[in-house]
């Protein structure tokens, strides 16, 4: 094997961090055997190496398969990653989700009520009071217009909160998947 081939294998070995030594050696030995096999079949070493691709990519594929192959025995590092996730993003969610949800649905309800009030007041039900300042009442014929403006404002706030709640949820599941690569089997082994 040429110095170029040796260098490839050394680099590959270095990059296989996080995998037990015994398996690392076995993996390197297998790739070495593959290169030699290619040469024995009359191919040039550079061609075989090119087909194997960037050693970094190859090592990464090994590592991600290794994580997935471990199944349920989570390592200490995974536990820490999970704990970190729940302490940061998790705690943040306790604040963010109820707040946004309350605003979204609370203001949504306000919107409906304002429109209802506008309709009822337009038909002369003066027990509904609409005022801009204390003491400054809206004339009955303007009830509907006022209700629509009010509903527009509350409706807009509800819409925005709902939108961001959705965005936050998507962000949340994306970062969860990042922490738990085994839950997202479509990670990166490029076919």
């Amino acid at each position, binding site marked *: 094997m040429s110095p170029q081939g040796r260098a490839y294998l050394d680099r590959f070995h270095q990059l296989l961090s996080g995998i037990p030594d015994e398996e690392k050696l076995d993996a390197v030995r297998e790739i070495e055997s593959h290169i030699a096999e290619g040469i024995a079949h009359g191919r040039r070493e550079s061609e075989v190496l090119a087909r*194997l691709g960037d050693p970094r990519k190859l090592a990464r594929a090994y590592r991600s398969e290794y994580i997935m*192959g471990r199944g349920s025995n989570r390592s200490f590092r995974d536990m820490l990653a999970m704990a970190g996730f729940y302490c940061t993003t998790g705690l943040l969610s306790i604040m963010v989700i109820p707040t946004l949800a309350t605003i979204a649905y609370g203001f949504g309800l306000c919107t409906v009520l304002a429109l209802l009030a506008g309709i009822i007041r337009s038909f002369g039900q003066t027990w509904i009071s609409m005022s801009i300042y204390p003491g400054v009442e809206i004339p009955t014929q303007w009830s509907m217009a006022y209700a629509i403006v009010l509903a527009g404002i509350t409706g807009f706030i509800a819409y925005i909160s709902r939108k961001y709640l959705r965005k936050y949820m998507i962000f949340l599941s994306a970062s969860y998947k990042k922490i738990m690569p085994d839950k997202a089997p479509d990670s990166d*082994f490029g076919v």
Partner: protein
Amino acid sequence: MEISEWNSQVRRGILEFCILLLISGNPRYGYELVTLLNKWEPLAITEGTLYPLLRRMLKENYLESFWQESESGPPRKYYSLTDAGRRLMHDMSAEWGKFAAAIHQIQLHRGDEA
């Protein structure tokens, strides 16, 4: 969706099945598997995909491996099926038959009653 992307998604789904089938007759080594798979253009894969995948299937106990000297060249790492691997292969064969039949039906009748 690009056809090449679709192709790689389908291939990703059936690659393990192909590997199980290829080594069910007799044990085979990595170089041999890549060469064999590359005979069929839609199944062509790179070494960078095959070896990590073999490793995972070993871990999952569907395959077992052993090193053997060869007359011409370096020692080879051979793979063969475990009992679990053989069962998986049979299950996949049955499922594959169902998939193929379903797709065939849809292609023929487009969901209309025959």
